[in-house]
C-alpha cells in the first residue's frame, strides 16, 4: 500500500470500479469494462486495477480453471474491507457536498 499520503485519494474511475466490485463481489477486467457501460476502457482498466491493488483498495486471485481450458488463468478482483470503507466515505462526501441544482 502507498505510504506517500495518509489520506487515501479516490479518483472517479477507481470509485466506479469499487462500486461495481461491491455490487458484484468478484469480476474479471473485461467484465468490469462491460459492466461500466463504456465508462471504463479496455486499455486502461488493468493499469487502474493494478494501481488500486497497490493502494490496498482491492485484492485479486487467479481463477481456478479446468486443466483442459488452456491459456493463462484470468485474474478476479474483489474489494478489500479498506476499499469498502474508502468507497463508503467517498459516497458520503459526494452526497453531502454536491450542490443541489438551482431552482
Amino acid at each position, binding site marked *: 500500500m502507498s505510504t506517500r499520503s495518509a489520506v487515501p485519494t479516490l479518483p472517479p474511475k477507481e470509485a466506479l470500479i469499487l462500486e461495481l466490485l461491491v455490487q458484484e463481489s468478484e469480476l*474479471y477486467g473485461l467484465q468490469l469494462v462491460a459492466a461500466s457501460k463504456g465508462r471504463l476502457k*479496455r*486499455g486502461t482498466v*488493468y493499469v487502474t486495477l*493494478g494501481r488500486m*491493488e497497490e493502494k490496498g483498495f482491492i485484492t485479486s486471485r487467479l481463477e481456478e480453471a479446468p486443466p483442459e*481450458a488452456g*491459456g*493463462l488463468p484470468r485474474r478476479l478482483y474483489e474489494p478489500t474491507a479498506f476499499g469498502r470503507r474508502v468507497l463508503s466515505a467517498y459516497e458520503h462526501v459526494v452526497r453531502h457536498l454536491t450542490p443541489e441544482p438551482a431552482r
Partner: protein
Amino acid sequence: MTRPGGRLRSWASHVLDPSTMERLIDPAIADLQHEHQEAVRRGLNWRGRVICLIGYGTCWKVLTIATVRHAVFERSAEDDRAVGRAIVFSLVAVLALTAVLVLPVLQSTALRRSDAGTASRLLLYSVPSALVVAVPLGLVFGLLLGLRNRVSTPRVTWSVAALGILCSTAAFIVIGWLMPATNQAFRELAAGRQLLRGFNELTLGELASGDAARLMRVMSGGVTVERLALEFHFRLALAFAPLALAMFSLGARVAQRRVHGLITTVVAAFVVCFGYYTLLNLARQAIYRDSLLSAAPAWMQWMPNLLVVVIAMLSFRRPLAAEPEESPQ
C-alpha cells in the same frame, strides 16, 4: 494451436519485471485469450478475429503504459532508477546545449537590429539546427551520468535502446525536413529578401532525388549528383547519431570495471562527443580536400557511426563479472 498474445507476452517479459507482468500484462492477455476462445468455441470465427484485433490493441496500450511507468517512475532496487535518471539528465543536457548553441544567434547583428517579433522568430528558427547537435550530445551526457555507478540490467538495455530509437526518429524528421525549412526562413528573414538555397536548405527528399538539373534553378551553384548523394548520406548518418551514441554509452557502462567519479564521467562524455564529431567532419573534409568526391562512395559518411557501434558491440561482449562491486555513491 498458438494462443493469441503468447508472443507479445514473451516479448514483454524481457522488458518488464515479473510483478508488473503478473499485475498488468497477464490479466489483459488472459482476458483476450478467454474471450477469443469463447468466440471460436461458438463458431464465431470472424468475431474471434475482431476480438484478437481489439485485444492486441488493448495489450499494446497496457504494455506501453506499463513500460513508460516502469522505466521512468518505478524504483527498481536492482538498477536504482537508472533509466529515469538517464532520461532526466539527457533532457537537462539537451536543453542546456540547445541554449548554448543558440547563444551566438543572440549576439548576431541581424538579431540586434530587429524588432522584438522578428528577433523571436529568428531565435525560434535557429532551434532546429541547434537540436541536431544538442540531441546526440545531450544523450551521451545524460546516459553516461544517469547510468554512472548503476548496474546494467536487461530493462536498462532495452530502455536505452528505445530511447536511442526515439531520439533518432525525432532527429530524422528534424534533419530531413524541419531544419532545411527553418534554415532558409532564418536566412531570408535575416537578409530581408529571398535567397537561393544551399545544401543545408535542401530536404532529404530533394537530396535523395538526385535531380541536379532541377535543383540548379533554386540553388546557389555547385550542384552535382555526387555531391547530392554525399550530402544525403551525411544527413542520414547524422540522424542515426543518437542511436549509435546511445549504444556506445551503454556499451561503455557495461564495460566499466570500477566506480567512476563525476568529473571522470563528464570528461569521458566530452571526449566521446568531441571524438565522434571530429571523425564525422574529418571523413567529410577528406572527401572534399582530396578531390575524392567523384571516387569516394557516399556511404563512407557512415563510418563514424559504424565505428561507434562496433566499439559498443565489443563492449557488450565483456563478461558481466566486470560489474562494479562497490555500492553506488
